[in-house]
């Protein structure tokens, strides 16, 4: 490892420790925002791990998230909670793997809408199965408060970042950058592009599923309409793109300001929140075409130019 890498790792550890301390020095309100940020950071970062290099826009986040909430909701009465998270992860990864295998031939917008249709399909099947079994509403009554949920999400975020960092240094990560640049070259260089993409697609699948499993106790009551709400997929995409998907930390710098922006709008424009949110959106797209990462890189480049 190089000196820069040690420095980055140290910096990441400091950030993690400070973030972990939030429940002790922040108000419950900031903790709630912290949960929101941690949740979207996990989802958007893992999303970008796949979509950043491959440029595939996946709208399947809600599908995996919903699956995860159902793992907890169904399993909480039968299995210890800590066991549910890995189960959710495995289910998410397996489903993502199957989806990945099926979607290899799709490109561009076809893949986008496919993932959207898939999310709806999974939701419909689960609803139907629930109806057949005559299950009553699923309640997740636990002692897990915002604090515990926050720490779990933070732990998951740390894992995602570590995983992302390791992938970035691995053959797989290198292969994906090549695929993202030119799939034809990738194949002729000896890269099994299909396998690489499927393997990587399993990461956001597993992570989103675990996130759902962690969040389920927060929602208390699990029903398909709330667990599989497609808006989640869109929010994750938008946060990640606003941040920038070229860097591991890109989505994070999208998630944090976006969360505060939503909060600000929700608070001061309760009756026009959608309207203002939409306008804010347009402004961001027009003024920040490369996301916050582009803004930061631009500023850095300018600073360097000024000193050089």
């Amino acid at each position, binding site marked *: 490892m190089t000196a820069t890498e040690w420095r980055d790792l140290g910096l990441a550890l400091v950030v993690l420790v400070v973030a972990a301390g939030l429940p002790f020095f922040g108000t419950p309100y900031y903790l709630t925002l912290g949960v929101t940020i941690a949740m979207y950071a996990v989802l958007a970062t893992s999303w970008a791990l796949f979509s950043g290099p491959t*440029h595939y*826009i996946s709208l399947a986040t809600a599908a995996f998230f919903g699956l995860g909430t159902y793992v907890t909701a169904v399993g909480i009465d039968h299995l210890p909670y800590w066991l549910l998270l890995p189960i959710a992860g495995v289910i998410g990864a397996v489903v993502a793997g199957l989806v990945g295998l*099926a*979607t290899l*031939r*799709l*490109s*561009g*917008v*076809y893949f*986008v*809408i*496919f993932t*959207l*249709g*898939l999310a*709806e*399909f999974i939701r*419909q*099947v689960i*609803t*139907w199965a629930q*109806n*057949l079994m005559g299950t009553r509403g699923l309640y997740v009554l636990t002692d897990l408060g915002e604090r515990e949920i926050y720490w779990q999400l933070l732990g998951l975020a740390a894992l995602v970042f570590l995983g992302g960092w390791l992938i970035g240094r691995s053959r797989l990560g290198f292969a994906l950058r090549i695929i993202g640049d030119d799939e034809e070259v990738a194949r002729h260089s000896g890269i099994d592009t299909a396998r690489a993409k499927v393997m990587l697609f399993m990461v956001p699948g597993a992570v989103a599923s675990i996130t759902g499993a962690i969040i389920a106790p927060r929602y208390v009551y699990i029903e398909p309409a709330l667990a599989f709400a*497609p*808006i989640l997929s*869109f929010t994750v*995409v*938008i946060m990640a*793109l*606003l941040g920038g998907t070229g860097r591991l930390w890109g989505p994070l710098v999208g998630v944090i300001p976006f969360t505060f922006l939503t909060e600000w709008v929700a608070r001061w424009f309760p*009756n*026009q*929140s*959608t*309207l*203002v*949110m*939409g*306008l*804010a*959106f*347009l402004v*961001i*797209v*027009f003024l920040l*075409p490369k996301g916050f990462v582009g803004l930061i890189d631009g500023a850095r480049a300018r600073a360097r130019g000024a000193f050089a």
Partner: protein
Amino acid sequence: MDIVITGLVLGGTYALIAMGLNLQYGVARIMNLANGEILVAGAFAAFWFWTAAQLSPLLTIFLVAPVAYVVNWLIYVIILRPLVRRAKSRGQLEVDAILTTFGLGFVAVGLMLAVMGGDYFSYSYLSVPVMLFGEPYGLNRIVAFLAAVVICGALYLWLNRSRAGLAIRAIATAPASARLVGIDVPRLSARAFALGGAVTAVGGALISTFLTLDASTGVIFTLKALVIVIMGGVGDVRGTIVAALLLGLLETFVAVLIDPGLTLAAAYLLFVLILLFRPQGLFGRRTT
């Protein structure tokens, strides 16, 4: 017979929902996530004219169409064209279009909430039975189906017989080459986008006679329209019509013969299967 008619009528509804988006995405290359909101706005106009002035939705559409055309044209020229100019690649434009139209959808929902509140707009129009082959069907659905036939037929003829239609198809097939043969791509793209918006709004006005909507329901229709357009193949009117009818027939078939609880699951399964075997959609061309 019963299943076929019900299915076709439902398919006609779906064609109304999806046709406009096909024009917008196929020609103007904008994956318009605000499509559903345009539809809801059309529905709201029909509802408003009906409750305020007892004006038949069949007449309202002649008001809705030009207004929607102008509004969508303005949206394209003011908001979307800069993005088209800015985009370095197809992928970049796709991402920008998703973000922008998603924001536009929010703005539209916000505006509609401000204007009409969040209440359902529900009214009764032509909800009387008509007998076809001894079975009753809602007249409003039949009327909407006939309108869908007229609109889709007119679009198809226009695209395949007229000079402007030829140019538009050229853009849909090969935008770069279209420019080389002297087609004014930016201008026609704007027109196609506007026309797509007008078709969608008219569709909304028609389906409001039998569906109950509110300001926030747009996203449901956006999802359905996206699925149909992709299933049929981007940029091909026939594809959208076939996909819409297929979906209508399938849903009705499943509802009657298997289990109504599985209709939407079956619809998405069909979508997924079609894409697995024809990744470019039913009538789509392989992109290179």
